């Protein structure tokens, strides 16, 4: 049972299910579970109204409530009563020669607890700990048959509440992990953005442009029907934003030259691809993004650089980057020329389909651009 309980995402429903099962199938007046709510720092009640319709979920139990305190404490002498409490056990403890006879404060505690159980019309209360922390308390009403509970039944309750405590804790943990992971993803994205800004501090491209490249690239990917889970999306974003990260390592006179580059200068310029890969490679989180950077100057016909990859051997993300990047280069005004109209850019992209670009990507991109003219 433990395994299936632990996998549940929403323990609230499970807890209600258990109380329903207990009250209905075991023929109890009612059953309820107190569960610690760390945000509100009290114990909330999940219950089944049972046949007697006892509503307990309008109640809360604060951390200093005698019942909570009782199961928190580890007093050796009353260990038995801390494993579980029943009205019957309390009466016995009060009646016979027991620690309660010698310790007036203990007597008072037990009398108080008996009253609480009576108020709640609860026959047995069983704590569920996880790593010494009190996570839950199972409250069980009377049997409809009015018979007493057997040891086997009580043992079953103990196992059950132990498993519930485990399930509740596991859910809390996985929620915390999820939050942490989200935070990590945000940080990652911030790093990518600040890196991208760094690149374009040196490049005549402005940062606004590079953000457009990112947006358009993501839209094109969607149009192509790529299944973008959050991780793949982040990788593609990073690829779109960082494809030119290696330009950090290109000398300014070449990078900012207002005229065409000669062949030696081109050789240097082309090294920005491998320089980019080198920058990203040591960062485990950027491993896949580095792949995109590595392939963004490859051509569909295999005549690109640096590896001369061809067709489908080029990652689809890199094929997208190459189309979006080329488009932007055409429509942007640079220091050495004026930007050209969008329709001309589309023509240019189509002219280079199947040679420089994957035609499927080009067509998807143009469709997206026509749908989103307002974006740019």
């Amino acid at each position: 049972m433990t395994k299936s309980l632990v996998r549940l995402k929403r323990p609230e429903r499970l807890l209600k299910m258990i109380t329903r099962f207990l009250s209905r199938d075991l023929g109890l007046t009612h059953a309820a579970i107190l569960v610690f709510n760390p945000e509100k720092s009290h114990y909330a009640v999940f219950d089944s109204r049972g046949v007697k319709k006892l509503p307990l979920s309008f109640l809360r139990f604060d951390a200093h409530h005698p019942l909570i305190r009782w199961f928190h404490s580890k007093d050796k002498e009353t260990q038995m009563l801390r494993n579980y409490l029943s009205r019957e056990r309390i009466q016995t403890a009060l009646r016979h020669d027991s620690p309660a006879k010698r310790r007036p404060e203990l007597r008072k505690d037990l009398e108080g607890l008996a009253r609480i159980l009576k108020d709640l019309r609860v026959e047995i209360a069983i704590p569920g700990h996880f790593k010494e922390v009190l996570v839950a308390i199972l409250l069980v009403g009377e049997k409809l048959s009015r018979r007493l509970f057997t040891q086997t039944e009580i043992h079953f309750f103990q196992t059950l509440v132990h498993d519930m405590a485990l399930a509740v804790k596991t859910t809390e943990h996985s929620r915390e992990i999820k939050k942490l992971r989200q935070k990590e993803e945000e940080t990652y994205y911030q790093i990518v953005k600040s890196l991208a800004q760094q690149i374009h501090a040196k490049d005549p491209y402005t940062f606004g442009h590079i953000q457009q490249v990112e947006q358009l690239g993501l839209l094109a990917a969607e149009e192509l029907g790529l299944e973008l889970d959050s991780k793949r999306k982040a990788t593609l974003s990073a690829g779109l934003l960082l494809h030119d990260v290696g330009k950090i390592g290109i000398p300014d006179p070449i990078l900012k030259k207002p005229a065409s580059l000669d062949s030696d200068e081109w050789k240097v310029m082309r090294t920005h691809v491998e320089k980019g890969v080198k920058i990203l490679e040591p960062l485990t989180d950027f491993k896949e993004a580095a792949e995109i950077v590595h392939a963004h100057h490859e051509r569909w016909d295999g005549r690109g650089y640096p590896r001369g990859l061809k067709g489908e051997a080029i990652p689809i993300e890199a094929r997208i980057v190459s189309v979006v990047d080329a488009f932007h280069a055409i429509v942007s005004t640079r220091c050495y020329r004026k930007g050209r109209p969008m329709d001309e850019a589309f023509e240019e992209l189509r002219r280079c389909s199947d040679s420089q670009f994957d035609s499927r990507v080009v067509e998807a991109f143009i469709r997206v651009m026509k749908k989103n003219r307002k974006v740019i």
Partner: protein
Amino acid sequence: MTRLLVVDDEPEICDFLKSFFEDRDFDVQTALSGERALELVETFKPQVMLLDIKMGSVDGISVLRKVKEKNPKTKVIMVTALETTEKIEEAMRLGADNYITKPLSLEYLENDVREKIASLASKA
């Protein structure tokens, strides 16, 4: 014996609180509606009243207003499931003596009721 009136549109809650306070030697009556509550205010003359702020048909606030008009000495503790501060503020302005929010702590509730009774006794 202190007379306590519990007003809530959920019968189970009424029953629960009735037996809880009867065990503590209170004389308890319950009302499931505002109309019934107002009748009981006349006939039963409760010293303390637990009044749900949001009931199905009648608004707890309007019941409060009438009670405070007719029997201003009755101590009224508002019970609310939602922490709607405006409603609570309105109730307090209209003379409610305190409010408690659901899910409620029985210990806190009992202390509060006893406090109200003590303040009645001291004025008498």
